[in-house]
């Protein structure tokens, strides 16, 4: 179950980077896939961090630098794990082979899925941030 979702997401982001990456730089496809895959997780992690730590840190010390550095520390494992998962997944699940079996229509659908996941998580981040602000 988890593996299937993971594979679908990874394939979607791979399709997106295949579509977006500059045609003269094919060596950039895999790094950008990893980046795009790990972005939504960091977004949601940022939102969760704001819910958990915003009022806790800022009520004690009104220093924004502490908040930001705390955020970096909170995000790092998420980012690291997500990128590592993506790196391993691309190799193990043979994403590039899977990509070749897809038709053009399928690729467009995958790109749409990736778009929704990416910007949906971006919106969720702000939703969580707003919740953190309003639950003061």
């Amino acid at each position, binding site marked *: 179950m988890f593996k299937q979702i993971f594979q679908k997401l990874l394939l979607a982001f791979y399709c997106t*980077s295949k579509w*977006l*990456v*500059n045609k*003269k*730089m094919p060596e*950039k496809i895999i*790094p*950008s896939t990893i*980046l*795009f895959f*790990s*972005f939504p997780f*960091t*977004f949601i*992690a*940022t939102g969760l*961090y*704001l819910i958990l730590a*915003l*009022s806790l840190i*800022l009520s004690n010390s*009104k220093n*924004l630098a502490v*908040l*930001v550095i705390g*955020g*970096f520390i909170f*995000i790092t494992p998420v*980012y690291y794990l997500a990128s590592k998962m993506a790196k391993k997944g691309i190799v193990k699940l043979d994403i590039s082979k899977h990509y070749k079996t897809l038709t053009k229509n399928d690729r467009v659908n995958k790109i749409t899925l990736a778009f929704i996941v990416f910007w949906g998580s*971006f919106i969720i*981040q*702000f939703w969580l*941030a*707003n919740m*953190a*602000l309003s639950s*003061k």
Partner: protein
Amino acid sequence: MLNEKLKALQIVLQQEVDFAWQCKMGTSVYNQNNRSFGSYLESSLNAHNKEISQILDDIAREQTQNQEPPNFNNYIRYSTSSMTHKEVFVGDKWILVPNTACVDFRTTTLGGSRAFTVTVSNGSDYATFTSTESLQSYQQNQQLLEADPIHLELQNDYVSKEEYDWMLLASQVYGTTKKNISGLGDLAELYSRTPKEFKRHYAYKISKVAKSIGKPAKAGKIFHGAEKVMKKAGKVAKVGPYLSAGTIIYEVGDAYINDTEIKPHTYVDGTLLVVGIAATAVGAPAVVVGLAIYGILDYAFNISEGIDNTFGSDSDLWNNKPIKHFPKKTTPIFNDVKIDNTYVAPNIKLPPNFKN
């Protein structure tokens, strides 16, 4: 003749008035039979009733004899606007009539006064106009408007000698006589009319200038340069999540401290930042350059503040409250009034026969 009759009438009336006045002054104030000046005048005028009525009759007769039938030849003229039509005077205006139409004038009376009737017939259509106004009176009325051409000095229309020379040259070279060449259409027209030799000459000159600077820059080279930069900048994209998370956490924390909501520019800038990171990862120089330009503009002109003012929670965009207390306070523009005695001469020279 008419003046003499009128003078005679005046003399007779003056005599009657003088006589009545003498009668009035002759009688004593204490007289029981005290008559007023009006009653004396009435009785004296009644006495000379026949004389006065005769003079009036003569005047009336002379006036009717003086009225000649109008010269209908002047009532038709050639039209200045169209060659196939002629103009006919119908009493209060000139109307355009086809040259083939038949026009018939007749003298008639309208309400006891002398009038004329025009019948215009063209094929099966016909129209009849009746008017008491003659061409003479119409022209006298129109004279105020048409007598002397009113001289207006419009500065824009004034062409100096120098301008005239240039216009003459332009008409010879380009075939245009317009003073102001405005609009792209005119420019394109001018360019198309420019002689080819002229164009070649300037192309040659431009190429010389380009040679003296160095090798001419080509669009392809610029593109390749941008790509080289992107190859190096791609590594920056790995820090992307930290950048986006850092800025968003900072903005939200700032909002928390200042006790406000998340400002709209945070959403916009955050989205653009993520797009920019994606573009660096992907290797799209155009997007990165565009976002960099946005950043410079934001720094220079503070676009994010404008976004906050127009879309923020304090802006009128979210204001659903009905307006109850409309501002009524008025402040005087001028605190003290001074009478300005400056006389501004009118620019229009009025015709000499103009009467106000």
